[in-house]
Every structure is written in C-alpha cells, then in structure tokens.
C-alpha cells in the first residue's frame, strides 16, 4: 500500500516539498540579510529602524499574504483527486477488488498522506517562525497580531494543511468526480478561512480590557487588538454603534469631534480597548491547530465511512 500511495501521489508530494525547499531558501537568504539590522533598544530613532526592517522584509512579507491560500492547493491536488480520480476513471473497481479491503485501502492512504501533509505544514510553520525570528524586535515580527504571519507560523499551518487535505478527500467521497470535488474544496476552504480569520480567531480566549489603568506590561509588543467597547456610567457595555447613538442623546451637537468624547468622558462613560497580550500566541496556535485537526479527522472518518458503505 505504501508503494501504491507513493506511485499514485508522488507528483503532488514532490511538487509540494520542492516548493517548501524553494520557499525555505528564499526565507534563509532574506533572514540572513536581516541579521545586521539594528534592534529596538539600540541607538537611533525607532521609526527609522522599522523602516529599514520593513524594507528588508518586504519582498517575502507580501508573498506571505498570498501563501495563506497554499493549503487550498493541498486540498485541490492531494485531497480531491484521491477518490475523485478513481471514480473518474472507474479504477476504484480495480483497486477495491484486490485483496485489500477498500476501508483499509483508504485508511492507509489517508494515514500516509495525512502524515506527509502534517509534516509539510510543520515545515512551513517552522520556516516562517524562524524567518520571523530573524526580525525579532522589529515591527516585521507580527506573528500574533496579523493575519498572514499568524496563519503561516508556528503549528497553525499543520492544522490548515491537514484540514484542506481532509476537505478535498471528503469532497471526492461525496461528489465522486475530481472537478466538482475541487470546486467544493475551494469553496469550503475559503469559507473556513474567512470564518476563522474574520470571526473565530479573536475569541479563542476572552480578551483583556485596557482601560488605561496600569496593565501596560501586557500591552507591550505584538498585541492582538480585538476592538473597542464603551462602558456606560450604569455599567452597560455599548458597542461602537450604540455608543454613537447614545452620544447623540447625552451630548447633543458634539458628535464626531473630540468635544463629543470629552463630553462623554465627563459624564462617566469609559472607552475600553479589547486585546490579547502577545504571550497568548502559543495558546492561540494550539487552539487553531487543534480545532482544525479535529475537523480534519471528522472529515476523514466521513470519507472512510462513505467509501465503505457506498455503492462503487
């Protein structure tokens, strides 16, 4: 089975690891170039330091924004054809009538390729983390606060790669054709990415509140900002829209201006920033990778179940 898995899937596997090698090389060269950058705490105006760091990081930093879509390719080229292509060519009739039951056939393919996918994801995450390490202490290293660095560093990529792979396999099991499975995989991946990045990620833990009174130690560095909330004098929490509405009634005629805020403050309204401190990075990484892995295992189970039960 190991040989068969390799023989059937060696092209996407080789392309993927080739791509990782290339990306690693670029990150290495770029990271070495950052070694001489002055760091925070060294002499010189900080603004200037960050400009230099950002100029050095720019070529890869902008590539990184696109690389968060790489897991989708794993879903499309590793996952969707795994079953889809067999159904396209009717070769499942050949594969499932040898002396290996189809349940074991699929389970072994999923185990082998799933392991490779996780390894590839971990390589991706480690390379990004090391690259960001070379910019430690500059504003390039925003691995917690910003979308692309967080998604690409640490162990989150392993979760995303495995999840995309499982979505592809499950789509193939469901639709029994490669092309529709590819379309479904892409759609599910994009929806999941938007859902996680846009909504879920801020709430892996309850955010801390900054009311400007003495928790500056957790406010330093790569802080992840969640939003703002306004607390009314009677203790109600108001979101931005409610706060504006209330301001119009309690401080009429002073909207949109600093005077409006001053007026509110005078009346006892407090504006509070919600944030996650930088040291929550690993907690968030584990949460994201864990949740995605659980989903992936569920999807893999669905694919096996459907393959064993369904008509060929």
């Amino acid at each position, binding site marked *: *089975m190991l*040989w*068969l898995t390799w*023989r*059937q899937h060696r092209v996407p596997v080789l392309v993927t690891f080739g791509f990782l090698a290339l990306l690693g090389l670029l990150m290495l060269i770029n990271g070495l170039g950052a070694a001489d950058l002055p760091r925070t705490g060294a002499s010189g105006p900080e603004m200037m330091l960050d400009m230099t760091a950002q100029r050095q990081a720019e070529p890869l930093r902008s590539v990184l924004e696109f690389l968060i879509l790489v897991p989708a390719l794993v879903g499309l080229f590793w996952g969707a054809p795994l079953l889809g292509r067999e159904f396209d*060519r*009717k*070769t499942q*009739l*050949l*594969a*499932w*009538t*040898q*002396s*290996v*039951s*189809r*349940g*074991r056939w699929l389970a072994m393919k999923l185990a082998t390729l799933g392991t490779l996918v996780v390894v590839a994801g971990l390589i991706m995450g480690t390379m990004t983390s090391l690259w960001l390490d070379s910019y430690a202490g500059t504003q390039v290293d925003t691995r917690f606060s910003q979308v692309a660095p967080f998604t690409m560093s640490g162990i989150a990529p392993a979760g995303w790669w495995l999840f995309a792979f499982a979505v592809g396999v499950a789509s193939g099991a469901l639709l029994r054709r490669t092309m529709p499975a590819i379309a479904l995989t892409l759609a599910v991946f994009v929806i999941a990415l938007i859902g996680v990045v846009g909504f879920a990620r801020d709430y892996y833990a309850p955010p801390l509140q900054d009311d400007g009174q003495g928790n500056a130690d957790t406010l330093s560095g790569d802080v992840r900002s969640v939003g703002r909330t306004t607390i009314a004098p009677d203790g109600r929490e108001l979101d931005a829209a409610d706060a504006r509405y209330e301001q119009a009634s309690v401080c009429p005629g002073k909207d949109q201006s600093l005077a409006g805020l001053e007026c509110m403050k005078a009346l006892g309204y407090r504006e509070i920033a919600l944030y996650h401190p930088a040291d929550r990075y690993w907690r968030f990484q584990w949460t994201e990778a864990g949740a995605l892995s659980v989903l992936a295992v569920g999807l893999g189970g669905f694919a096996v179940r459907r393959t*064993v*039960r369904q*008509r*060929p």
Partner: protein
Amino acid sequence: MTIEQGTDMPAFETTGLGVRYRRNWALRDCSVSVPAGRVVALVGPNGAGKTTLLHTLVGLLAPTAGTARLFGHTVGQSEELLARMAFVAQDKPLYDSFTVADTLRFGKRLNLSWDDEFARRRIADLGISLRHKVGKLSGGQQAQVALTLALAKRPELLVLDEPLANLDPLARDDVMRALMGTVAETGMTVLLSSHVVSDLLNTCDWLVVLNGGRVQVSGDLEELLAEHRVLSGPAELADGLARRLQVVSDTRSDRQATLLAHVGTERLTLDSRWSERPVGLEELVLAYLRSPEASSLPRPSLATSA
C-alpha cells in the same frame, strides 16, 4: 428438469437477492446457485442488471435484500474472500499512468497470492513491453493486461464484466482463448457477462439469463438445450399441447403454430401432425427474453431455501 447438485459447495449462490438504487430495483428476488468449475455465461439485454449482479458477487455492492455467497461465505468486504476471486470490470479499468511493470507490481503488492512469474511470462508471450505506459497500449493489449492481473491472482472464481465489448474480432479470439487455456489448466470457476449471446457459444457450459432484474434461466447448457424443443404443427391443436407443456414462446399463423417449450427429460409422445426439432442457444435465450414471465430454474435446494 432439475439440476441435481452434488455435495460440492456451489462456487456462488444468491438467495432472494435484491439491489435497489434509490427507488429502482436493479435486481429483484434473484436466486441462483452455480457449482464450482463451471464457465458461466450471464446474458441479458442492456440494463437487465448484469453489472449489478456481478458487483454484488464481488463485494463492491451490498445487497438491499437477500444474500450473496461465494464458496459458502456471505459476500462482504472481507479480505479473505477478496483474495479468492478476481474481477475485471466493464471497460477494464487500469491506471493509465502506470507502466505495465507498475501494474504488475500493483497486483503483487495488493494481493496475498500472486504468481509473479506467470504474470511476467504471460506479458512477455503477448509481446507487451513492461516499460510501456498502460494508457498507450491498444485496447486488445489493455484487455490482456487486465486479464493477466486477474489471472495472476490465482483466483478460484474469476468474474468478468463484458470482457469482449470494444474488442476487435481478433482480440476477442485472443482473449477468449487465453481465458479458456487458463481455465483448462486451473479448473477455476469463471463467470462472464455479455449482451451478445454468440460470444459465449463455444466457451460456456452454464447459462444464466437475467431479464429486467430477475433471473429467468439458470442451468447446465447441454441440459437446457436437451430439455427444450421447438414443436411445429397445426394451429388448432396448439392449445391442447400448450396446456401439457411449459411453453416459452408461442408463434401462431392461421394454420401453423410454432411452440418453443420446456419438455423436460421425458420423451414426448406427439400427434404425428407435429414435427419436433432441437433448439439453438441463441433462439432459446431470445425466446426467454421475449417472454419475461417464463422461467427455467432448478428447484431450490433445502439449503438455499432455508
């Protein structure tokens, strides 16, 4: 008229087998039992359920009702049973991107019993290079590679779905001859389907006719031919005769009636105005297919009806 089976385990057997795709029954209440060592022709028009029956027997499809058994074991996805049979699906699917050598390696890696020497010798005898990509081979060569893959597994039961479709006459002959050669050597049971009856004339010794998802005929070919007769005589006497016999088809003109009937093993005593002749295989199959309500099945044995 009943085929008496020996104490030998049937190679395959179905009891009340039914398969439903959503609302349509592709197979309904199929009961057949075929002794080991036979070359079985499964014939029927397109859409009769031949592929469904074959897929059920090889464990690709789970029956909705009834049971299918191979060598006495209920068919499922057990690897032990998979190892004892080989299946060549319709259109003989193979991995196009594999070389012939890869394809043989596939067979070797995925099967417990695999006769590598036989496979390599057979491919060499056919003049097919091991280094060629399967997708680049001719249809006849692909059929031979698919057959080699099945035979090298050394199965006790070989199931072939329309093995001769899409092959030119020469390739048909080659495939059939190769098949029969191995059958003679090994004594395995072969089950092959076709919608072209004449394909199977010279090679099979058991006939199963499937029509509209039901089994109409199952029996030893020679016995079936011996037990059916074509009777021609005056139309006014036909009704009387038809009452005495199991008539499969009944063609009448003003004066003349032609009956194809199952007469059994006893000698017929007929009015001298009737003439009698043996039936041809193709004629027999067509007669049954045209009258779906007629059937010729062995009486179920106690074991299968229990």
